[in-house]
Each structure stands twice: as structure tokens, then as C-alpha cells.
């Protein structure tokens, strides 16, 4: 038995030792090359500015680089929500990389992004926020990268590249965070004036809808039950950190808002029972984009029987947040750039008697012209849901 065992092994001992030798060599060289590569690069080359310092500017997480010697000329954006800052400051021609696959919703001819940046399709796709394409970003040679505040594995690469990062919390649950980001971004790109004007307009809108300056009248608290519901992939989403801003301004306008006491989560999925139990008087529905137009979307959504049991349905107070891919209302919940327009729109729906003098069409035209350098009528066309 022992002899057999020895014989069966002995016949291929030479062959096996060769294989082991080859594998050992492979292991040795792998380790050697890894160490050599690590040592080589430790003296490594920086691609851009040195000595970047970061400051956490607010609790929500906004990280802006220390002031640069001159405004950046090449920008890599791989976080869709941060495109708001790009369009607000009109620096789209400096963007060389952006998350094309993520913003494809509005890349068609005449879409919001295409209209504001006609050359958008010629730009390089930087991948998804959770999976940026390092090679594309490096290849574009940006002198600033706009990235999300949440941690991603690619952070290690960005650290090594030493390219300044402007990190923003894209959902801007608190409008103060968004306005901070606007100020810092404006400063970075030498447009402090525009940043200040935008801040002023945003705050003015909020003041207008919470306190009437001329009379000192404030909205009556907790008399109207309202719900802002995002319908995405057949889920009814409300509350949570992302809707904090919307909840805040609805409350500020005298509403009791459908939400969960524990809204520490980013978003809370509601059951039909939750909605029926709360029975809101006003419902604002946001589908991110109303494919095929608001009419079609509303017909499709409201065909579910439970809506008909709600007070808001019976009193014809279910409103679809204007959201088409030609206008600023696109992905309204997140797209805080145009939130002032959303606030005015919601104010008119909730308190038509108090805000009758607000001309939404006029406000939109002014906003587009002043802050986006665009023609609202041309962009929104017949699809404008802002009435």
C-alpha cells in the first residue's frame, strides 16, 4: 500500500516541483512588484495643486477646498445633484466630466440639461457617484472635482491625485446647507455677487411664504393636513432626512405634515394604510419626472382605488409637483436650485387667497433669465406645469 502511494506520487514529483517553482516565482515577483510599485509611487507625482485643506462648513457636510489662486478651468462632476451649482453659476462650458448615465433622463434634444448645456453629450461620462470612473476623471485632467460627501472607495484615488474636492451633500435636506454651498461655490469661481443675489432671492421667497412683510400676518399653524409623497418604483416615500426642507416649508405655511416621528432615515416608505389613516387635505405628488406629462402620470397613479377614499381627492386637492424634463422642476425634491419656484407654487396651492398676487409665470421667467441665463418660455414650452 505504502509503495503504491509512493509510486503514484513519485512519478510526477519532478513535474509538480516545477509547477510549484513557477507558482513560487509568480508569488515572489508579485510581492516584489507590489512593493516596488508602492515605493516608487510613494515619492509620487502630484497632478494638480498641492497643500489642499478642507473645512467642514456645516453639520450636513459641505467640504470646500481652501481658496484657489484662480477660478478652476476644468471641472469633473460625478454627482448629479451638484449640477445645480454648475448651471447656477453658468460654468457648464468648464465641465469636462459629468455623470452622463445618471442624468440621461434629460439628455434628449430640448431636455433641461441639453438646453442649458448644448454640448453636454460631447462630455465624458464619469460614471455613477458610487462608482466613478477614475481613468476618465484622471484623463480629463480636472482642476476641481465635485463629489458627494458620502464615502466612496474612490476617495483613496482622489487623495492621491491631490485635485481639490468640492464635496456637497446632494439632497440638501436643509436649505441653509444649500445656500452655504452656493456661497462657497460662488467664491471659488469668482462670482460672489451672483451667489449673494441668489441667496437673497431664496430667503425672500421663504420670508414671503412664512411671514407677510406688509401685514406681519403669519400662516395659521396646524390647520391643514398635507402630505408630500414621492412615488418612485411603486413605493410611496415621505418623511426622512431628504424631505426635511419640504416638511419645513409646508409646516411654515400652516400645515400638519404626514411624516414619521422617527425620520432619522434618509427616506421613509409609507404604506397605503399610513396615507389613508392620515387622510390629508392636501397632497403633493412628486414622481421625480412625470413621464408622458402630468395628465398621463396623474391618470396612471390615481387609478388606484385608495386615493378616492381620501379627503384630498374628494376636494380635488391632489397636486402633481410640476416636473417635466424641460424645466427646473426636474426631480423637484432634490433639485433645490429651483426650490424658490416650488415654494411659491406650493404656497399658491395651499393659500390661494393669501398669495393671489404672485404671478408664477412672471417669477419663473425672471428666475430663468437672472439665475440660469435661459428663456423660461422657450424651455418649458407647452409642457410647463407651472400654472
Amino acid at each position: 500500500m505504502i509503495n503504491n502511494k509512493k509510486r503514484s506520487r513519485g512519478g510526477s514529483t519532478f513535474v509538480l516541483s516545477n509547477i510549484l517553482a513557477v507558482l513560487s516565482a509568480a508569488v515572489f515577483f508579485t510581492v516584489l512588484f507590489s512593493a516596488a510599485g508602492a515605493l516608487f509611487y510613494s515619492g509620487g507625482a502630484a497632478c494638480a495643486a498641492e497643500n489642499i485643506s478642507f473645512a467642514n462648513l456645516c453639520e450636513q457636510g459641505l467640504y470646500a477646498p481652501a481658496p484657489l489662486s484662480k477660478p478652476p478651468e476644468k471641472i469633473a462632476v460625478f454627482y448629479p445633484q451638484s449640477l445645480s451649482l454648475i448651471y447656477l453659476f453658468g460654468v457648464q462650458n468648464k465641465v469636462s466630466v459629468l455623470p452622463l448615465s445618471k442624468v440621461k433622463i434629460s439628455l434628449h434634444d430640448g431636455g433641461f440639461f441639453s438646453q442649458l448645456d448644448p454640448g453636454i453629450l460631447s462630455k465624458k461620462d464619469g460614471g455613477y457617484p458610487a462608482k466613478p470612473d477614475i481613468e476618465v476623471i484622471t484623463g480629463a485632467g480636472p482642476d476641481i472635482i465635485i463629489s458627494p460627501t458620502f464615502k466612496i472607495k474612490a476617495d483613496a484615488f482622489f487623495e492621491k491625485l491631490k485635485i481639490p474636492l468640492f464635496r456637497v451633500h446632494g439632497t440638501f435636506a436643509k436649505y441653509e446647507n444649500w445656500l452655504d454651498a452656493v456661497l462657497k461655490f460662488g467664491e471659488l469661481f469668482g462670482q460672489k455677487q451672483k451667489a449673494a443675489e441668489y441667496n437673497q432671492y431664496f430667503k425672500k421667497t421663504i420670508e414671503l411664504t412664512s411671514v407677510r412683510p406688509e401685514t406681519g400676518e403669519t400662516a395659521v399653524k396646524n390647520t391643514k393636513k398635507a402630505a408630500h409623497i414621492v412615488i418612485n418604483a411603486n413605493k410611496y416615500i415621505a418623511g426622512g432626512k431628504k424631505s426635511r426642507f419640504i416638511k419645513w416649508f409646508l409646516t411654515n405655511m400652516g400645515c400638519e405634515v404626514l411624516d414619521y416621528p422617527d425620520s432619522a432615515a434618509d427616506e421613509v416608505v409609507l404604506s397605503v394604510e399610513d396615507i389613508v389613516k392620515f387622510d390629508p387635505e392636501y397632497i403633493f405628488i412628486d414622481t421625480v419626472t412625470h413621464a408622458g406629462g402630468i395628465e398621463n402620470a396623474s391618470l396612471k397613479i390615481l387609478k388606484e382605488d385608495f386615493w378616492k377614499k381620501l379627503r384630498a381627492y374628494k376636494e380635488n386637492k391632489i397636486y402633481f409637483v410640476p416636473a417635466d424634463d424641460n424645466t427646473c422642476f426636474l426631480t423637484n425634491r432634490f433639485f433645490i436650485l429651483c426650490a424658490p419656484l416650488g415654494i411659491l407654487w406650493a404656497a399658491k396651492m395651499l393659500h390661494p387667497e393669501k398669495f393671489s398676487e404672485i404671478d408664477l409665470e412672471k417669477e419663473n421667467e425672471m428666475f430663468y433669465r437672472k439665475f440660469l441665463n435661459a428663456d423660461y418660455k422657450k424651455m418649458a414650452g407647452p409642457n410647463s406645469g407651472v400654472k
Partner: protein
Amino acid sequence: MDNKRKTRIIIYVFALTALTAAASFFVGSFPLAFKNFAAWVFGNYQMSGSEKFILFDVRFPRIVMALITGAVLAGGGVSMQAVFKNPLVSPFVIGISSGAGLGAAIAIVYFNSSPVIIESLAFLFALAAVFTAYVLSGDGGDTTLLLLFGIVISSLAQSMIGLMQYFADADHELPALTFWMLGGLDSTTFASLVYAAPAGLLCLAALMSMTYKMNVLALGDTEAASLGIDVKRVKNIIILLSALMVAACTSKTGVIGWIGLTTPHISRIILGADNRFVFPLAALLGAFFLLLSDDIVRFCGAGEIPVGIITSAIGAPVFGFILLKYKKTGWS
């Protein structure tokens, strides 16, 4: 086929893999020309910081990780198939991938997607899943029971991953989790290699030295025992080493399917059933397959499709082809 010819085939595949690895340095959306690299080696060209960064920080660790992970998954496949005497077994079958996925999901949803925590929890949960299945099956005494408990643990972990996906934030947690489950080498750094490479390579070498015992195990437990093999101990060591190396690599790369199932069979078709040859060939083929898949990912341009999609897209039809080949003769 005699042993010398088998060795020659292994050396050919090694050379092919090495050549592909060398060529892989010049595949990707960042333009990096070989002639510039050659000129740089001879001191006639000054590489820019970006070029050095892509070459040494992005592609180098990525290629090494592809080679090691591919070899580990394939080697794990050969070892597991030998222990379980089941051709449908892959390293993931005893809960490694589901356990790792659950660990990653917890890290992504509850620990703000911290890369270090993702990798640590993925590794720990992968080993915990195997350990649980192992203990429940009576310390691995009955491999069929171990296999079945592995399936149970995997299903439980999958249901919990589903729950995590449900609660995950749709903007960044859900995509992060989805991408992780689809596998990818795009974020590999030298730091990733520091942990995964030694574990992978040492376990591979240890398993390679046990290929003779794998052959004996194939004869059946009674026969193996009569040949002086401590069957339970050998099986336990093989399972432990396989789980350790696969968990170490999977925690870095995410779940990359099909390599552990397909390459052992291709190796057996080429070289026969002798694990002393099948193991190194499968490891080399696994390394080659994953490297090639990653090259396809980088060649296909921006955005980078997760590599697990490519390995499945290639692996599944190849395995189907193998099945057709065995249709007439059966697995025996």
C-alpha cells in the same frame, strides 16, 4: 496525455496569462501608449503625474488583484468540488458570497459606506456564514449536510440583504450595494493588496500542496482512510483554506461569479481528473479569465460595467457548452 505534456500546457497558459497581464497595462479609457512607456523605461520620455498615477496606482494593483482573485476563485472551486465530490459546487456555495454580501450591506446602510468597514464586515460575515454552516453540520463531518446548511445560510443572508436593499437610500446606498454585489476591481489600491494578496497566495500554495490528497479523497472516504488519510481533518483544512482565501478576495472585490464553477471544469476537460494538474491550470485560467473580463470592462469605455456581469455573461454560456458536452456521457 502524459505528465510532461500536461506541464507544458500549464506553462503555456502561464505565459499567456503573463502576456495578457502585461498588455492589460495599456488597456483603458486613459490614453497610455506602450511606446511612451518603453521610452520612459529607457529614459527617453518623461511620464506625467497622471500617467504614473494611472499606471502604478490604478492599473497595477487592479491587474494584480484580478490575477489573484481569479486564481483564488478557481482554486477554491477545484478544492470545494474535490471535498464535496460534486461538480456543481463553487466556493460560494457554503455561504461565502451571501455572508460577504450581508456584511457589505450592513456596512453600506448602517456605517455610511465606509470602505474599511465594508471590507472588514464582508470578510467577517463571509467567514461567519461558513463557520455557522460548518458547526450546524456537525463540524463538517457530513459534507452533504454542510452543503445543505450552506444553502440555508445563504438563503437567510440573501433575505437579510433584500431587507437592507429595501431600507437603503435609493440615491447612494442602493447603487453602492448593487455595484458591490456585482463585483468590481475598479477601486483596488495597494492597500487592498496588502490584505488580500498574502491570504490568497498563501492559501493557494497550501491548497496546491494538498492536491494529491484531493485526488485520494475522490476515491471515497473509506478508500482515502485506508490509504492513510485523516479524511475529516483534510477536508476541514481544505474548506478552511478555501473559505479564508475566497473571503479575503471577495471582501475586496465584491461577488464575482462563475469563475469558481467554470474554470475547474475546463481544466478537467483539458487535463483529466488529476487535481495536481487541474488545480494549477484552473488557477491560471481563473486569473486569465478575470483579467480578460476586467480588460473588457475597461476597454468598453466610460462608466465601467461591473466585472461580475462580464464573468457571468461569459461564464454561463461556457458552462452551458460544457453541459452539452457531457450530455451524452454524463458527469461520471
